[in-house]
């Protein structure tokens, strides 16, 4: 992983966030809402909620490689090994009474007063939230999104915007306050600014050599996930962008002597983030961009039209789009970042984020004339990942790239 000066600020920013939400939950100083990662956070912030993102928590379990310890507890509750391992590891950790947030002084995960989902990403997030809703006897509300969208149409946007409005009575009741239009517009404005800054950070990797990789992005995206709509996230990304620009100017490479550039499609393998980063670095290969890190770019957000723009932003996301729209998106990214190939992660328990299963890698390879690699694994369940097989797959793929490159070309 690339050593960035901003890492210290990142740690402080994330620590402040976790402590604040822990205090709010324990001392009841603010209502707590759980929100799916690309859910309507702006609405929640405008109503004064402290917002917790269980996907971030699950990723922490994955990164700490404790997820596999907890999953069996959820399996025993009837949650299959084949459903989202974020869900099973998070529920299992709750049942075990453990959380990595204890490192920030929290006695447990912050108890929700309401859970708000958008199922644009999958059905599992709804099932996940329902488990806590039943456990704590609190409301679970959300947006049921259309999926497989080719072009985002106004009537799709209308439908989601109406659903967002319908969340308000419950949210206002739990928050004990009415929605202030000015606060919502401000929250959307700040979210958009965060999105633009995060996008600019990621775009620095269009430079050759790239100053950061996908693996760095998965760590530094933390504030864009949990503090979207809060000014602290913008402060963080202004500093990160300045550092990345500096690195770009100095040709300071994330992967020393970068020879190959790849695009990563799919979820990270959280428990092998560092190992995979080291492996690609060993092969002088920079994974320069990813659908995953780009998924926290919400360019449609518009403070002049908060709810409709939130609806549009949620519908423009890669994960809700049609195969054709996804392929066109990947093509744009591969061109923009100058990728030599694409790694598709076939994430065993996350079919919605695995674009390997309906023939896309082959179609993309033929469309773009670049090779693709499908890597079996999982976001949190390391039983589905083989280090040895991954190494051979990746090394073999880089061999293929190296052999295809004309002698004397950059390598």
């Amino acid at each position, binding site marked *: 992983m690339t050593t960035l000066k901003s890492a210290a600020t990142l740690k402080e920013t994330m620590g402040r966030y976790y402590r604040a939400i822990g205090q709010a939950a324990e001392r009841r100083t603010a209502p707590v809402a759980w929100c799916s990662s690309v859910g309507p956070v702006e609405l929640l912030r405008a109503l004064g909620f402290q917002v917790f993102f269980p996907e971030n928590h699950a990723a922490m379990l994955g990164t700490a490689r404790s997820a596999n310890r907890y999953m069996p507890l959820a399996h025993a509750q009837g949650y299959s090994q084949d459903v989202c391992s974020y869900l099973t590891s998070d529920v299992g950790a709750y049942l075990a009474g453990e959380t990595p947030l204890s490192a920030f002084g929290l006695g447990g995960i912050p108890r929700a007063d309401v859970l708000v989902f958008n199922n644009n990403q999958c059905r599992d997030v709804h099932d996940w939230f329902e488990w806590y809703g039943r456990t704590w006897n609190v409301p679970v509300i959300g947006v049921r999104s259309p999926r497989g969208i080719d072009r985002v149409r106004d009537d799709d946007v209308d439908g989601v915007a109406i659903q967002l409005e319908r969340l308000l009575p419950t949210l206002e009741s739990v928050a004990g306050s009415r929605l202030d239009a000015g606060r919502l517009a401000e929250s959307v404005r700040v979210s958009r600014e965060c999105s633009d800054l995060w996008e600019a950070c990621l775009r620095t990797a269009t430079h050759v050599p790239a100053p950061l990789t996908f693996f760095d992005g998965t760590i530094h995206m933390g504030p864009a996930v949990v503090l979207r709509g809060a000014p602290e996230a913008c402060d963080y990304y202004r500093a990160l962008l300045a550092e990345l620009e500096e690195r770009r100017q100095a040709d300071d490479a994330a992967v020393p002597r970068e020879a190959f550039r790849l695009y990563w499609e799919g979820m990270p393998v959280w428990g092998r983030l560092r190992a995979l980063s080291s492996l690609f670095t060993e*092969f002088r290969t920079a994974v320069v961009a990813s659908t995953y890190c780009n998924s926290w770019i919400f360019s449609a957000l518009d403070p002049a039209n908060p709810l409709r723009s939130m609806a549009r932003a949620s519908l423009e996301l890669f994960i809700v789009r049609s195969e054709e729209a996804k392929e066109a998106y990947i093509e744009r990214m591969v061109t923009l970042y100058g990728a030599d190939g694409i790694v598709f992660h076939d994430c065993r328990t996350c079919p919605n984020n695995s674009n390997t299963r309906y023939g896309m890698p082959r179609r993309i390879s033929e469309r773009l004339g670049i090779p693709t690699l499908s890597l079996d694994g999982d976001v949190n369940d390391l039983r589905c990942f083989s280090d040895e097989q991954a190494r051979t797959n990746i090394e073999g793929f880089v061999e293929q790239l190296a052999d295809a490159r004309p002698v004397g070309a950059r390598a």
Partner: protein
Amino acid sequence: MKRYAGVDSGSWNTKAIVIDDDARVLARAVVRSGADLAAAAESAFALALEGSGFHRADVEAVWATGFGRQSVAFADGSRTELDCHGRGAAFYVQGPMLVIDIGGQDAKVIRLDANGQRLAHRMNRKCAAGTGSFLDEIALRLGVEIDRLDALAAQSTEPLELSSFCTVFAGTELLTLIRAGKRPADLAMAAYRSLVKRVVAMDVLQGRVVATGGVVAYHPTMARLLGQEMHADVLVPPHPQEMGAFGAALAAREGAVSVGPEVPA
């Protein structure tokens, strides 16, 4: 005349081969990999050298491949088995082609262009089904030595199917069929058919298909069934089990480069 060698450190067996300048095979050796991959590599290489009548100093370069390639400390370079099986097959067969390598614990499909250049590859999932381990499990259930399984299947008269996707489930399905009075020969053939179905599902098998690896070396039924499934002949080149080691020796002869930090800028 220069000599080159390749060592394929596989999950079950370690294979070594010594070739000359013209890629003529001078000697081959196969030993059990066991738990000490480095020792197995030393042993296989020593046996191959002995068979060739040359000494280590007579060998220009040794390259390693296989899942234990990094354990072959004496190797001058390494390439994945994806590269080496493709490289070896392309020496014997004119591309474009699809190379199917079925080993003890994994199966690979490698697509090569007319020049033998790799276009794509697929490996089996993290699962024993579709690999040599599946046949070992079945032989165990049938109570026959693994090296007798192919001869047993040759006596098959009734076409049976094993429909399970999983090696363990296939084992229990086998027990059900045994209880139903089905003949071991037909069950052995059903096991081969099941393995072939897993392999053909890995990629579109069109054009020239070449089969390599220990499984096709010891189980000729596999290549025959693969051919039936594809309605085409499946080519089995010489020494299919040592094809990876041969490819590694060719990489040494051709002066390939290992990918990694040592690649010259």
